């Protein structure tokens, strides 16, 4: 039981570590947003699940925290990346497709909203 919990915590910590690494190493803002958000959300939930194995009586509160992070973290990074797109943050030279810009052009206004 405890071994399962600690392995889950270790996996989560590895994902958090890779989130930090991606945040530092990725070439432009948008890739940093996706690296920082996805990996850290998964890592956080894994750490909380591992702690749930240690303390089964804390499980409900840990579940609430995990649910909250799962709901809010993608939301805030979505708003952030939309803002970054709106103020024309430069993208990495290797970017091929800008779907949000194309959608805005198709609707006839340059300003995507």
């Amino acid at each position: 039981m405890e071994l399962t919990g600690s392995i889950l915590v270790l996996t989560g910590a590895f994902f958090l570590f890779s989130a930090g690494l991606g945040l530092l190493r990725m070439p432009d803002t948008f890739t940093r947003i996706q690296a920082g958000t996805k990996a850290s959300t998964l890592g956080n939930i894994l750490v909380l699940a591992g702690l749930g194995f240690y303390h089964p009586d804390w499980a409900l509160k840990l579940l609430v925290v995990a649910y909250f992070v799962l709901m809010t973290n993608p939301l805030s990074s979505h708003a952030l990346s939309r803002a970054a797109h709106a103020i024309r943050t430069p993208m990495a030279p290797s970017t091929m497709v800008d779907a949000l810009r194309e959608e805005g052009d198709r609707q006839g206004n340059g300003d995507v909203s």
Partner: protein
Amino acid sequence: MKAASSLLAVLLFGAVFAGIVGGYGERESVSALAEQYLAMVPRELGAPNVVTGILITYRGFDTLGEVAVLFMVAAGVGVLLGGKDTTTASEPGREPRRPSELVGNGAEITLPLIFLFGAYVIKNGHLSAGGGFQGGAVVASGTMLLMLALPATKLNHGFLGVTESLAGVVYVGIGILGLVFAAGFLDSHILPLGEFGTLISAGAIPVISALLGVKVGAELSVIIDRFRN
């Protein structure tokens, strides 16, 4: 010249602070007053959270004054900013961008959770980390999310004002009841202590905590709404 004098001032303060930190040894035990509080709050008041016990009962006057300060701030911000919201809101051509649909829907999912958590923090003020002020701040941050994600919503200032005033009046009324039925103003022994560590316990502390939470939440919501333009 000005930069040099500012730097000098900051460096002087830095030297003073360095002296304070260098001469400070970490304490090994709490002071006599704190030991008294730590021993008396669970036994006399029946509240597991010592900080809430101190804030609501032993320093009840202070908390009452604090709530009065918040009330004055709400009134002052209303006086400073209240008269102009009708002119700037209807200004054409400066329509703010609507937040995306995802943010709106996400806020609708998260808002009940936040308000529920605020109520939880308020009601668990005497058991766990929390209390009236903290829970009120959580409720007010829910209001802030409402304004960020759904900008078209209007707050009912009249209702919030009446709620806040009622909570304040009942708070002072409980204080006077303490004067009549127990040892002094804002004494929490007017209700039975109950079983230690349960939700309905610790005398009047949960009631006062709930009133504080309602009052602080309403006041902070009004203040935040005033700053929206």
